[in-house]
């Protein structure tokens, strides 16, 4: 039997919810950029500038691993999520769920935070004894979106990956270097990118993005 993290039975959508201590039955979640008070900044910046940035609210994140039993995982994912495991450098999307190809034996699913537990449980039930791994990494990352006509220029200042729309097109996902951190970078649609970065680097990347966006005008949106 695998051990699974206890159910994330406390679903929350708002990162700006008032902090309530100890005795509250509902613990308060903080995204990596909680301290940046993005919602206050959003109120203060203009919209419609060259770039807009938002930190997405807490989401569920599951790493799927499978090599020789990849077929078993694919079947389980199809049955539970109604999507196929994406091919190299691509994504499979259904509703608010997105499965990203990370490596030939690794995928990253994002979903509503309160769904992760059920999804993990269902996939483990279906795969049974197959050689797969699932890891809940919801706390390990921060998800940002970068949008606007100059978003691609900000990316070009930040990563050596070829982000030209002919190469990084909607639906494509790559893991690469971002400034001096790493990123799981996805083109959502034209001029709209998602950046998943390790939580401990979020403040660094946030700082970097402010500097890199300055010349185009940066607006903050509530994710």
């Amino acid at each position, binding site marked *: 039997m695998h051990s699974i993290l206890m*159910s994330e039975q406390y679903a929350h959508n708002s990162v700006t919810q008032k902090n309530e*201590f*100890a005795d509250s039955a509902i*613990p308060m979640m903080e995204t990596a950029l909680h301290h940046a008070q993005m919602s206050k900044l959003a109120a203060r910046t203009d919209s419609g500038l060259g770039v807009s940035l938002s930190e997405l609210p807490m989401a569920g994140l599951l790493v799927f691993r499978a090599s020789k039993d990849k077929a078993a995982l694919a079947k389980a994912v199809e049955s539970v999520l109604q999507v196929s495991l994406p091919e190299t450098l691509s994504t499979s999307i259904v509703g608010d769920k997105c499965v990203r190809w990370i490596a030939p034996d690794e995928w990253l699913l994002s979903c509503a935070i309160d769904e992760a537990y059920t999804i993990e449980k269902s996939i483990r039930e279906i795969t049974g004894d197959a*050689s797969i791994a699932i890891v809940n*990494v919801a706390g390990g990352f921060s998800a940002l979106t970068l949008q606007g006509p100059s978003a691609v220029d900000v990316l070009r200042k930040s990563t050596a990956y*070829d982000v030209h729309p002919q190469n990084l097109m909607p639906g494509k996902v790559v893991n690469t270097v971002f*400034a001096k951190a790493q990123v799981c970078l996805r083109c959502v649609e034209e001029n709209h990118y998602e950046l998943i970065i390790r939580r401990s680097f979020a403040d660094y990347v946030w700082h970097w993005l402010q500097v890199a966006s300055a010349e185009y005008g940066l607006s903050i949106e509530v994710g």
Partner: protein
Amino acid sequence: MIKLVHGRYVQNYRLPSGGRIDRSKIFTFRFNNRYYKGYEGDTLASALLANGINVVGRSFKYSRARGIMSAGVEEPNAILQVGATEATQIPNVRATEQSLYDGLVCSTVNGWPSVRFDAMSLVGKLAGGAMGPGFYYKTFMFPAFMWETYEKVIRKAAGLGRSSKERDPDSYDHMHHHVDVMVVGGGATGLMAALTAARSGARVMLADEQNEMGGGLLHNGVEIDKSSAIDWVNSVCTELDSYPNVVRLTRSVVTGLHDHNFLTVNERRTHHLGDRGPTGMSRERMHKVRAHSVILATGAHERPLVFANNDLPGCMQCSAVSQYIRRYAVVPGSSIVVMTTNDAGYQCAFDWHDVGRDVVAIVDTRAKPDGDVVDKARERGIELITGSAVIEANGSHRVRNVLVAPINDAGTFLTGEPQTLLCDTVASSGGWSPAVHLSCHTGSRPVWREDILGFVPGDTHENRIASGRVNGAQSLSECLTDGVNAGKQAVHSCGKQFDSGESVPPVPAVVEPRVGKAMALYLVPHTKTPTRAPKQFVDMQNDVTAAAIQTSTREGFESIEHVKRYTAMGFGTDQGKTGNVNGMAIVANTLQQSIKDTGTTVFRPNYTPVTFGAVAGSHTGALFDPKRFTPMHRWHIEHGAKFENVGQWKRAWYFPREGESMQDTLNRECTATRESVGILDASTLGKIDIQGRDAREFLERVYTNAWAKLAPGRCRYGLMCGDDGMVMDDGVTSCLADNHFLMTTTTGGAANVLNWLELCHQTDWPELDVYFTSVTDHWATMTIAGPNSRELLSRVCQDIDLDKEAFKFMDWREGTVAGAPARVFRISFTGELSYEINVPAHYGMHVWEALFEHGRDFNLTPYGTESMHVLRAEKGFVIVGQDTDGSITPIDMNHAWAVANHKSFSYIGKRGMQREDCLKPERKQLVGLETIDPNTVLPEGAQAVRNPQQSIPMTMVGHVTSSYYSANVGRSIAMAVIRDGLNRMGESVYFPLADGRTVEARICASCWVDPAGDCHKS
């Protein structure tokens, strides 16, 4: 401050009309504390010339007056210090490359106290004697102190520009590009190549170092397709700009062409706008370009001829004179003598003549020049002296006259008496050197072509095309044809096609004169030998003369690379763009061999100097390196923590209260922990989730101790070695389920350990069914330690049975802490009863604060990494990387208990530990130390000796690895690796310190608190 009287300085050398300048935009600038005027469109050089400034600097070695010689990046003399304030100082700016802006402030860098009267010029002559050829070489051969003396003299006397002592207020950045075709150089060839490539739809970048595209077309007055070349340039640029896949950069020098067609392009974005750029705009942008195909259309630099006193202000390249007249409407003198070995040199005489100034003579070194230009010169009535050369210029701060003498056909000796011609300007052309620099950056050597008297790029396996003048094309029509062909070839090599034949642009029509054959001449002969003649300069910036090169060759430096290093030829900021070929020719002549056999030196990046700002980009200040933060970081800041860097992590170091010294804080934190309960943010610990049927087997192989029997719910200390048997990392690994483990690593070792596990798995044991996932960032980890930690935990955790029998030492349990899902590990790095609470990072702050809410009753005390170090040292727990250094085996570390030799698999490190060297006695072993004086704290790193009376150098037997004052023990404690230490308990070792003291300490067991281990099991 110098008061300016506006209008006092008149631009005497400015023509009343013409040029690519905007006369409605008048700029005032300051040069050496005097004010001058120029126009938008000027370079600093053209504006200085317009104002009749002859002397722009003093030479490096001989302190000779120097003037502007060229009009481009090859300029060796006009190297200025630019900047209106201390913070905006830029050293070594080429005046020929710097656009003029209103308010520009600049000064000479190497004239002290002034360029007109240089106090050093007398001494300079003396110093010049001391600084003959081989100056660098010889001084480097001397002991270092000699060099220091020399260097001070040079820097004070000559100066090489200075950097600001203040923080640069401007910003810099980088931008990455991926293109199919990169075209370097926006002259006729480059424009044609870029246009051709762009029409295929390819992704194209075109970069040129000047403020506008066109190169030589901007001043050579030719017609293309029956209209002015400038109209043609504009139409090409307009078309290029209409393609979304084309990036066209001006003021952008391609400074490096690296492996796999990676180019660095330094764009000067605000240098032309002012002393400081507009806010929000980076001053320089380093474009980092990866190109499938590179077209080098870098053109050529005109070689001035080498003759006596050829460094006098007023000596210029022919093409530079044309450029100043036609592009900037500046005539840099009133009467000119033109010396040329080729037809191209005539143009400057014509341009000079066209603006109504006096052309004294064209001195053609060829006996019978026969190109169309010869007739044109005659038609204009210009005096033409053939088969002759300017052998010497004379004047003090400006050319006054020249000596012209007839020479033999080979140009090796004079055939008659010199005559004197009066003039203030000498333009010379010795032919053109293709700008091959970039082609050399990855090691390719240029190839000499006798037919064009120049080096062209050598072969390379990279996808590169040299095109136009750089590849030896001589005429404009050749260049344009070359450009089309290069563009087509590059497009095809990218696997792209043109839509139809019409997409390829036709080669535009140009009318070209018949050109006569050029003469190979580099060093002009003189009545005296080079050593006796007035100085004949080859490399102006480094003051390398023809005599010095001959001397070095005679001294035995025959390889061109040796000559370069001996004379410093080509070592300046101009990298010998104008002088190198002349120098090589002189070496070849002296050795009586061909230039081909002499070869060339290899040019290295960068083509022109690059500022540190451009190299650093935005990676400065707070963004120099990522700072990683734990989920509780904000709390630490709010509670006054001091931080320390652990790798990229910012960890809370200690939490001082008002009035406390650091030691006071540590004493308080450590005693509070042992007496009640303390809390540490341990989120930075590396954590690796390990799943798979063979997870346990994998652990058996990479850890030195046994894992076969670790049951779910249990934890174990694990020790990891490299193949060499040396300790690599350690941590607690917990069994989450039969096939599922959570490994912890040291904070600094996390990434290395994960990669190590992957390497072992992917390359050595791919058959094992196991998956590794980093969960370092997923978990917020807080350690509560101390006798009251169970009580505290019970206040926030109701669903885990905390009873000491139900939840034993080295157990872990899953539950809810302060409402958050948690894994609680009963492990201890302090020796106290202790729990490590792990919750998903997004709950970290919430749980941390909840613990403090309840911790008031127990004086819950936050402690930082420093107290953590003290507390673990009190128990003798090691920190890998602090108490070990890659040369310590588990046995050396006194961890024989963590080595299981009976495991079936020969785990990593086992064989290494058994090498002869690892088994020998007298290895350094980890022990405890107590100083004789309990208040003396040994410095970490202090070296131990057995007998302090021995003579120096003493035999060192080990060193201190950890050392603290422990309030709990009431004395200083230390750990050290000491040779044979484990067998020498109770013996003294001595530490002779840098301050002269010698500290005696006794070897002891490295555990000072609760040696029986009752506390952590309580």
